């Protein structure tokens, strides 16, 4: 988990959007925010390569 004062390198919005996960250590304990995929997806986009180049 990241300390709150190091998250300036990536904003909360960017973290959640890119990774679906944002975690922080605060003075009163830790939290993590997890976002499920917004649409159904098959496995990781590159199991054997992108067929469309």
């Amino acid at each position, binding site marked *: 988990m990241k300390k709150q004062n190091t998250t300036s390198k990536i904003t909360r919005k960017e973290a959640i959007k890119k990774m679906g996960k944002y975690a922080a250590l605060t003075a009163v*304990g830790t939290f993590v925010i997890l976002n499920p*995929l917004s649409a159904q997806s098959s496995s990781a986009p590159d199991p054997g390569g992108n067929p469309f180049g």
Partner: protein
Amino acid sequence: MENNLAPTYQYLFGEHWVLWYSTSNSYSIVEPSFKTILNYYLQSETIECFATKVSNDDKTIDTKAISITIANYLNSCNEYVNSIAHKNLEIDFTHRRILKQYAIKDKIIQIYFDSELVLKTIHPALAHCLIEPNDNAQITFDIYLKNEQLYLFKDEKIISCVPKRDYHLIQGKFIMQLLCSIHNKEENDWIGTFHGSTITNGSKSILFVGESGKGKSTLCALLCANGFELLADDVSPMLSKNKNIYFNPSAISIKQGAFNVLQPIIPNFDNLPIVQFNKTKGLIKYLPCRSPKKDNYKCATIILVNYENKSETILKTVSVKTLLERLIIDSWISPDISNAKQFLDWLGTIKIYELTYSDTKSVTQKITEIFK
């Protein structure tokens, strides 16, 4: 303060609170100490009232800084995500160049593809269900590439349209719609489609999850060769009403890195067709399995899979937090409020393990023990 940003549901699992926010469909896992402060914040009518409550517990806390932390936390948890609607997109029938029909459960499904390239994204996993075309199809899909976008239609209505690089979203949406058709359900009937593979022993099932490339599908192929049955590979759908995982007809996809592990174990492995997506990347084989006797099974166990070369077979219990940090970000989970409640209720009933393995015989034995 800001009660409109409060979590919709709050569940305590062991040492962690799991909070669900309906505005954003976000799940948040917090420590009890954080939850206490969050509660003070939501219950207090003013900042002064909040500061008093916090100071009563711990005079050293910087209440102003904490109130900002909590406010930012609540905003992050409630960031609304717009869903994309495609209501006005009309189907283009000129792209109906290749027709394939499949028999799945009691349904005949037909798919029109516009090219071999598009066909390669969907057909190989269902090739074992292929039948000679006839006039009896009950459901029709159209999938085509047009203007660098991939389109998916079901019975001539638009389901999804994505840039071609996001073809995995078309695959996912197609599987969802296929599952709805074969099980006679609507999208809103599902708790979610978990990114994982599910195996059954004929009376109950185990869901295997984990990062891509950690051995889920390989393990399932091994288990299927040792008497277990595949319920779902890669996309495991859970129905809200009964919290059971349902049959997904797709064959197990096996990456080239697992060929040498499975070749000695799977009968006729060398004759399975190879699918090449891209010349510079690896190859894939699809392993169809015998359909299980029922089309849905209760799932009371989840295993996080980790293949590690030369490791012993190690099984250990892990927390709901460890599970959710893997499961949620990789899976589609329904934003519907009653489905979210079903999901959270189910999490309280299951056993969760992490499995590290390298030896195929030993891991099969371990899974057999878990089923018992």
